Structures are given as structure tokens and as C-alpha cells.
């Protein structure tokens, strides 16, 4: 009983950590306060709210059935935040772990995870001034919804194709990271299309300028995720 609970908590925390981190510390990629025109502010909030709403309903049910989960979830969220704020030298640590995410998704569903992600992003804007309140909808959509789905999907797919365990972890972590960066570039391109080349041209510009930081970052992320999991497996 104790043991199974330990694993349950472990999985939950790891799930939230890896998953939340898939977007967290790509600091340069949090859309800053006031950057998006009001139209896009509203659109992205509307896009994100259903996930948040359903997530909260599921949270309500979870807390009613097992009240101690409130603390476990709070700890997980804090854990994720702390890792996103740790300054991993020349890397700003962020990773997205698919196994964790996979278990987390199986246990709680992606909806609860989007609430967790939302809270992390909120604290990033309140305590670290990364991102903002009006742009929270857009940031949450790419980082708290899209990233985890990609990680989950990539991991499942690579498992199916019998890719080596470490490679699939790496791919899921790295690709989820890339996906959020692509999504953010897309959000920016939609709001600020290029006067000559339109949305596509603008997307190309955003995507290539942020690639300087984001591509090495996602590779390191992938590596770190693999290393962390291998360490835990030994423990």
C-alpha cells in the first residue's frame, strides 16, 4: 500500500514536472505582456478556457474522492515551477517527459494537467515576470495544452514503431519542446503578418530568430530527460 502510493505520487509528480517543463523555461518564448492585440488576447483565452474549465471540474471530483491529492498536486506544481526557475547553465532547463506525461495523462487526463500548467505560468508571470496576464491565454494554449499532447503522441508513436526506449524519451521531450516554440512563432505570426510575405513569411521570421535559442535548448532538454529517468530507474 505504502509502496504503491509512493509510485503513484512519483508518477504524478514526474508527469507534471516533465510535462509542465516542456514549456516552462524557454524563457525567451513567453509572449510578453501587452504584446498581443486585444483580438488575439481574446481568441487565445477562448481557445484555452475549455481546457481549464474541464480540468477544474475534474480536479473538483479528484479532491472530493481523495482530499490528500490537493497537497500532492500542489507539491507537483511547485516542483515543476522550481525546475523551470533553476538556471541550468547555458541551458534554461526545461524538458517534457513522455512516460511521466503518459502516466499522468492516463491517471488524470490532460485536462488536469492543463490546470497545473496554467498555475505554473501564472506564477512565472507573477513572481518572475515571464509572460503576462493578457497573454496568459496564448501562452497556456501553446505550453500547457499543445506541448504535452505532442510529447504524449510522439512517445506513443515511437513506442509503436519499436524505437529504443531512450530514443523515444529523447524524441518526445525534444519534439514537445520544439512544438511549443513553433506554436508560439505561429501565434506571433498570426498577430503580426509580414506586410510583403504575409503570415507564412512572418512565421518564418519568428521561427528562425527563436531557433537560435530554442533548438539547442530542446536537444539539451531531451538529453537531460533521458538522464534523469535513467537515474531514477537505478534508484
Amino acid at each position: 500500500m505504502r509502496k504503491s502510493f509512493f509510485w503513484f505520487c512519483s508518477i504524478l509528480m514526474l508527469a507534471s514536472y516533465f510535462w509542465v517543463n516542456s514549456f516552462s523555461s524557454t524563457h525567451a518564448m513567453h509572449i510578453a505582456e501587452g504584446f498581443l492585440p486585444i483580438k488575439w488576447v481574446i481568441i487565445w483565452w477562448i481557445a484555452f478556457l475549455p481546457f481549464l474549465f474541464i480540468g477544474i471540474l475534474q480536479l473538483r471530483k479528484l479532491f472530493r474522492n481523495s482530499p490528500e491529492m490537493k497537497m500532492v498536486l500542489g507539491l507537483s506544481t511547485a516542483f515543476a515551477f522550481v525546475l523551470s526557475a533553476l538556471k541550468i547553465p547555458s541551458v534554461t532547463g526545461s524538458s517534457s517527459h513522455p512516460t511521466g506525461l503518459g502516466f499522468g495523462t492516463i491517471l488524470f487526463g490532460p485536462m488536469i494537467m492543463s490546470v497545473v500548467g496554467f498555475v505554473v505560468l501564472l506564477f512565472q508571470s507573477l513572481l518572475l515576470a515571464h509572460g503576462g496576464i493578457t497573454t496568459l491565454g496564448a501562452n497556456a494554449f501553446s505550453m500547457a495544452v499543445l506541448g504535452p499532447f505532442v510529447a504524449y503522441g510522439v512517445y506513443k508513436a515511437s513506442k509503436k514503431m519499436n524505437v529504443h526506449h531512450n530514443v523515444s524519451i529523447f524524441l518526445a521531450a525534444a519534439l514537445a519542446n520544439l512544438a511549443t516554440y513553433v506554436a508560439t512563432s505561429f501565434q506571433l505570426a498570426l498577430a503580426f503578418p509580414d506586410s510583403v510575405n504575409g503570415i507564412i513569411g512572418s512565421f518564418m521570421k519568428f521561427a528562425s530568430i527563436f531557433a537560435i535559442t530554442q533548438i539547442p535548448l530542446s536537444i539539451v532538454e531531451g538529453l537531460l530527460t533521458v538522464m534523469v529517468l535513467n537515474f531514477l530507474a537505478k534508484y
Partner: protein
Amino acid sequence: MIIDTIANQQRLSTIHPIEKFIFAIGCLLTTVTLRDVGLSLLIFFIMSMIIIIVMDIHILLYLKLLSLPLLFILTSIISILFTFSLEPYSGEDLIWSGEIGPIFIFILFTNFEVAIELFLISIGSVTCIYFFILSTPVHELLFVLSRLRLPKELIDLISITYRFLFMLMETAIQMYYAQSTRLGHRSFRISLRSFSILIPNLFIQTLKKRTEMQQAIDSRGADELILSFTYEGKVNKKHLFFLFFFFIILFSGKVFFE
């Protein structure tokens, strides 16, 4: 986490959090909705004055804080500023052009305008947020959120997370120091390996905390963490009237100038 420490020490702690919330969010929404450069500059000026003079925050610290979102803002603005094309362009609004191999680079006047506007509006909005987070500690924000009737689950999660953040952060920093003293971060490779050890250990400490805290909750006669968010003091009606007129003046000023 300097922001949190300042928020708990500054001089506006006697002002009701709901008033601060209305003021900050009101100004923010005004800036983002109207997207007017002059107005944004005005908001920037007002907020900076309040932060530096009224809240007595050192100007260097404030500038340092302002520079935090600059990385994102500047990178994005640079990509808006330049246009790339395979063909040369010679419209009237061309400000500058150059070429790298087969690719032509331009700065167009319209894009220049957009970039400047975006920069000023962003900076204006950022100061609104800074006013709010520097003047309102998280426990006051929690009180506001509970007054706004946001779902209890969400507020609880925010509150519990906030409490744990600092505990875990402290442990993480201690671990980082302990690794550094044993040369665990002397090179990129070693550092990466050290982080891959630090993260699971932090996680194990987190689990330990969970057990301890559950016992502490039980010992105080509960099995669930039911939190309350209180604030002593009432909303000052005069302040609300003042805010009301302030926003009316902001909007009419905008209409007047157009």
C-alpha cells in the same frame, strides 16, 4: 523571487488589494485595448512614478526588472522590423535595404511604425503588471481571486503551490551549492550530469515533505487542507470613485485627441 520579497515589504500594503487590482488591470486593459502610443507612454510614466516614488523602489532595481521581458520583446520586434524577399523592392515606404547573397532585406516604414508602437505598448503594459505584482503579495491576490468567485479548487492549488515553491526552491539552491562546492558544475558536461542527479533528488525530498505535511494536517484535526483567505480592512469607497474618474478621464482624453 525578488518580486515576492518586495511585494511583502513595500509601502502600499495598507491599500486594499481590490483597489490595486482594479487600478492595475484597468490600466492594463486600457493600454492593450486602445493601443495608443501616447496613452501607453502616459501609463508608463504614471506607473513608474508610483513604483519609484510612492513605493520607494530603487530605480536601478526597477530598471533591472524592466529589462527582464526585453529579451523577448526585442527579438520579436527585430523580426517584425525586417522583411526578406528574393526580389528587390522599391516602394515609397522603404527606409533601408540590403542584401545577403540572393536575399534582399528591407525595413519598411509601416513595419517600422508597427515595431515602435508595439515596443511602447508592451513597455506600458509591462509596467502595469509590475505595479500589480510589486504592490500586491500573493496572499492578497488570493483574497482577490476568492472574492472574484473563481473556482475554489484553482485558488487552493495556487495557494498550496505558492507555499511549497519557496520550500523547494530553498532545497534546490542548497543542492546546487553542495554540488558546486564539489566541482559539480565546472563544465557543461559535468553540470548536465549533476543536474540529472539533482532533479530526482529534489523530487525525493519533495515526497518526504508530503509525508511530513500530511501528518501535520492530520494532527490539527483535519484530513483535508481547507484554506481560508482573509484580509483585514475594507475597500475605500473614495478610492473607488477616484479610480472611476481616472478611467473616464483616460478614455475621454483618448476621444478628445482623436
